[in-house]
């Protein structure tokens, strides 16, 4: 019986197609990759089953603490009696923060300028400190044994980051009783017209 040469015993496996596919896969995953980010949430409570009602604007909690955020840096003087508005300068990246009528400082958009994150944090801290001070000495007019709510009253154009910044700092000073001022624009024009269709009959 003739002896089979050593080279013929081990046929060569062509690795080229496999390497091609592997590289294609590698490139696909590299291009489609974005790292998993650690996301969180802040839980807030909305008024139960009311939606936006004009009564919430007309009959506010008499003793409440308002955190006011005015987009564009326009100072809006809130007066509970007169509802005065006074416009000053306009800058779309600036947002003036006020706790009641106390001017706390200017918040800046960070989407184009990351260096503003630290100054914003300092302003949020001040908002938290000032709000806590007022919150602790303001009993609720509806129930004097309780504290009055904090109402975040922000302009339509206020960046979402400032709202989260304020909620976060209020939670840091142990204030959970947070409410939002509604936007009359959506309160009057949206809706299916099927009012009270879901109201429960007891």
């Amino acid at each position, binding site marked *: 019986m003739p002896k089979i040469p050593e080279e013929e015993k081990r046929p060569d496996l062509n690795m080229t197609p496999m390497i091609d596919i592997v590289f294609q896969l590698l490139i696909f*995953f590299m291009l489609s990759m974005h790292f998993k980010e650690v996301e969180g949430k802040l839980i807030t409570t909305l008024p139960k089953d009311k939606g936006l009602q004009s009564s919430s604007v007309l009959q506010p909690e008499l003793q409440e603490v308002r955190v006011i955020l005015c987009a564009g840096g326009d100072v809006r003087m809130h007066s509970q009696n007169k509802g005065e508005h006074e416009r000053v300068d306009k800058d779309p990246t600036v947002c003036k923060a006020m706790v009641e009528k106390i001017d706390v400082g200017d918040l800046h958009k960070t989407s184009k300028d990351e260096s503003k994150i630290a100054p914003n944090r300092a302003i949020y801290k001040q908002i938290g400190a000032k709000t806590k001070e007022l919150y602790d000495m303001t009993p609720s007019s509806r129930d004097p044994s309780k504290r009055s709510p904090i109402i975040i009253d922000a302009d339509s154009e206020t960046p979402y980051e400032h709202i989260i910044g304020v909620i976060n700092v209020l939670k840091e000073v142990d204030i959970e009783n947070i409410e939002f001022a509604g936007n009359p624009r959506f309160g009057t024009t949206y809706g299916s017209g099927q009012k009270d269709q*879901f109201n429960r009959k007891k």
Partner: protein
Amino acid sequence: MPKVRNPDDVDTMNMTPMIDVTFQLIIFFMLVTDMANQQLERLRLPAASKAIKEKFADETLMVLNVTEKGVVKIQGKTYFTPPSKDRPEEYDAKRLEDVFIGRRQDKRYQELAGKDDIVKYPLLIRADRSTEWQWVQMIMQIATKEGGVTRVQMGAMQEEGK
């Protein structure tokens, strides 16, 4: 006399280590790539130290993504597009309202059926850090009025070391 080289005697490169490394890389990228969660749009969320970790494990969680321009997306589909700046009154949130009306009806059927384990349908609003507040306000107002929503979770990035 110089050694004559046999033409069949070609030096072959050992490919094994390269293939090993490439497979390792593929496994790495497969693990770190988050493609399964179609609910989440790529947004730059604001950071919050008090944010509670969200695992997106609850299948009933409805995630509303609000882009920088105010476009509202659920499961990758657009449910609301803001009107142009010069015609702000011409906005149409009907599709968004229908989502919450359906959600409320679903909950109502469960209540009528006397189910004890009523699905709570948690709501998470993820908005870009520079999204105008009015679009988040709009969602919350529609959610309250049409969907009877009382608790809203607002998406934020967890700050490192917290």
